[in-house]
């Protein structure tokens, strides 16, 4: 696809209908626009779409396998993690990337990993709980 030179990745993704990618701050501060670029979480509001050329971009829309949610999504639902839900897509993608690199993170490692994803509803406790639960699910390979 083509994009004007000045269009950011979040603008292109939302134009294409990927509305899980939130346009929040446009300064890379809030993390609502998080996508995975070749498996690493990045803020799509502070990069141009052209910079993603040749990379694999994953949004929340691409996580579930048909009707089967990703274990991190399941964990977020089971623990009732989302409050307003604005940060959840980015938070989930960051967690997915962390668990691919580190299947058994400590709570501290989880907190460091989500440092770029701001949640203004919560104190982050349930988010960390959900990532811990997701890690257990993924290591066990089955629902608990």
């Amino acid at each position, binding site marked *: 696809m083509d994009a004007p030179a000045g269009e950011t990745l979040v603008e292109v993704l939302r134009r294409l209908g990927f509305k899980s990618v939130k346009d929040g701050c446009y300064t890379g501060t809030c*993390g609502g626009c998080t996508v995975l670029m070749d498996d690493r*979480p*990045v803020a799509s509001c502070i990069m141009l779409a*052209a910079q993603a050329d040749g990379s694999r971009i994953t949004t929340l829309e691409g996580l579930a396998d048909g009707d089967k949610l990703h274990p991190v999504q399941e964990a977020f639902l089971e623990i009732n993690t989302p409050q307003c839900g604005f940060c959840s897509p980015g938070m989930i993608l960051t967690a997915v990337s962390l668990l691919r690199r580190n299947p058994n993170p400590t709570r501290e490692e989880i907190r460091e990993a989500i*440092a770029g994803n701001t949640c203004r509803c919560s104190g982050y406790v349930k988010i960390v709980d959900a990532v811990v639960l997701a890690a257990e699910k993924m290591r066990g390979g089955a629902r608990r």
Partner: protein
Amino acid sequence: MKEFRQFVVAGSPEEAIGLKRAIGPGALYLAGGTSFVPFIKTPVDVLIDISKLGFSSVVVGGGKVAIGATTRIADLMAPELREAAPMLYKAARRLATPLVRNMATPGGNLAYAFLPSDLAVAFLATGAEIEVLGERARRVAIEDLLKDGWLAGDDLVSKITLAGRGAGQGTGFAKFGKGEVDIALVSAAAWLEVSDGGVAGLRLAVGQTSSMPAFLEEAADKARGEKVTRGLVETIASVASESVEPTNDHRASAGYRKHLIKIMVSRAFAEAAGEAGTAIAD
């Protein structure tokens, strides 16, 4: 949408430099873009993407660590580098957030040193050598780059080389901002070499205190040959604070920054002493 008229992926350093020279100020290099994309508000004729020039590897060997200028800052936190050059991990970990570090590059961070560059401070303390390509191609000690007006024109940073960790050496990095991930009000970095219980070498730098980072030779000179004591740390911190004229702005007053310089320099020095295996005597 930004008013960027053309986006060109440079296939070689020569192509990038040639374009920059041909177009002049209307053309800008783009590395990770994490400062550039959000904060440049004026139109740009041509953006030259320099992320695919092969400057994205880190090589450890011969007592040195050579960092490609467009390595992702997140990659400076790799476990093997943490051992070879601990300063990289310490400074990179405190730089913005993982989302930014996955795109941002050390070369870009240096080029934007007039913005709050954490790595410039860390590189000053570790005595990094900066390789610059372009019409004024050079390999230059970072403190000389600072004296000579930093980067300009078609200067393209390709590599940053630092000495690896040696026996009796330690590094420290301290930073204070509104929160963990915010831009610092003051950051400080120290590189220390201890021999026979005395300071054999010290390099100190502070950042975010004014428009450019500062290399604190006077404070470091005070330490040479001295025993590592609490009194010495206080002296170094005071001289450091005296030798800098900090910015007075909406983020912090000059007086508050001077206060913070003392504390950050003390913390960076203490961390460096600890890593060098030296206890600070009373």
